[in-house]
């Protein structure tokens, strides 16, 4: 199995179904994986227990693939030196928080567990007032034809500014003292149904 290109998702750092790796390797050790280069990775946002892969310990892969762990071949993308293990960010994903835990053992080996937390699962939530744009949409219905092709900034049924540059229109509305202006690109009314992307 070719393990290259399995990683690098901007989503979670674990872009593939790890179950596929587990299934395909549950009975044998892939020839192209050096157990010395194995690093345990786990998507902690999921409801599974942490898994610790022991670096520098030739544990058979068949024993290590029983959990949600991504296995990397020891390639030029993952560097192991006397100073540590270097893992490219794109393997872990771009929208993740990375933490690690080290355990030293009497035989001199070091166990390193790397956790890749998807940020989106840990977003802070606050309850806020619901946004109501009824008046702005009513204004748009009434004056659309006069402003087609421009950006408009509104507050209720009041037009704050308009023009071809969204940033300038926004700035003018802010200068008028409106904290969160409603910004709309006015387009001709389109009666065609939308078919998705």
């Amino acid at each position: 199995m070719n393990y290259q290109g399995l990683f690098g998702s901007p989503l979670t750092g674990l872009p593939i179904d790890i179950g596929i790796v587990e299934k395909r390797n549950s009975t044998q050790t892939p020839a192209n994986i050096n157990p010395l280069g194995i690093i345990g990775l786990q998507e902690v946002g999921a409801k599974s227990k942490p898994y610790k892969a022991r670096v520098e310990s030739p544990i058979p892969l068949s024993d290590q693939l029983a959990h949600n762990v991504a296995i990397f071949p020891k390639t030029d993308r993952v560097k192991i030196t006397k100073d540590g293990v270097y893992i490219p960010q794109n393997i872990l994903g771009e929208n993740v928080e990375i933490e690690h835990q080290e355990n030293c053992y009497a035989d001199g080996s070091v166990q390193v567990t790397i956790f890749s937390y998807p940020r989106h699962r840990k977003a802070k939530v606050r309850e806020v007032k619901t946004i109501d744009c009824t008046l702005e949409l009513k204004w748009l219905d009434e004056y659309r034809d006069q402003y087609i092709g421009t950006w408009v900034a509104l507050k209720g049924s009041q037009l704050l500014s308009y023009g071809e540059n969204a940033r300038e229109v926004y700035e003018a509305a802010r200068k008028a003292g409106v904290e969160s202006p409603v910004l709309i690109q006015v387009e001709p009314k389109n009666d065609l149904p939308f078919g998705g992307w």
Partner: protein
Amino acid sequence: MQHTLTFAKRHSYDTVLTGITIPVELCIGQNRVTIPLAKLDTGASFCIFQKEFGEALEIDIESGSSVRIETATGSFSAYGHQVILSALGFEFDVMVYFATLPGFNRNVLGRLGWLHQIRLGLIDYDGTLFVSQYNDSNETD
């Protein structure tokens, strides 16, 4: 087997408008902008907005996390930035994406950034959405 879901909030949307329209506010630093015509899109991987909204917020769009997004008719580039997103009474610190394709005029609330943060009920015939934050789980069999 019956399942019962309860939700903290209920919202009505205008069924005359194209799509399921949800007003959204994006905030970064002291800058806030309200986008009145964003669409709920359960098929979209991300929350994606016109780059002009990011520029209004003084975001350097192309300094963000780059991603290529596929559609039925092609693909386009977008850049992710961490913002505060408010919609339907909940506010989250999340990653949203700004499309750089010229003429791009869609603003969608997709999975990463919004749907992952909430529990959502939808009765499209009535134009009704039910929403709770994800952690406010209250499900019974």
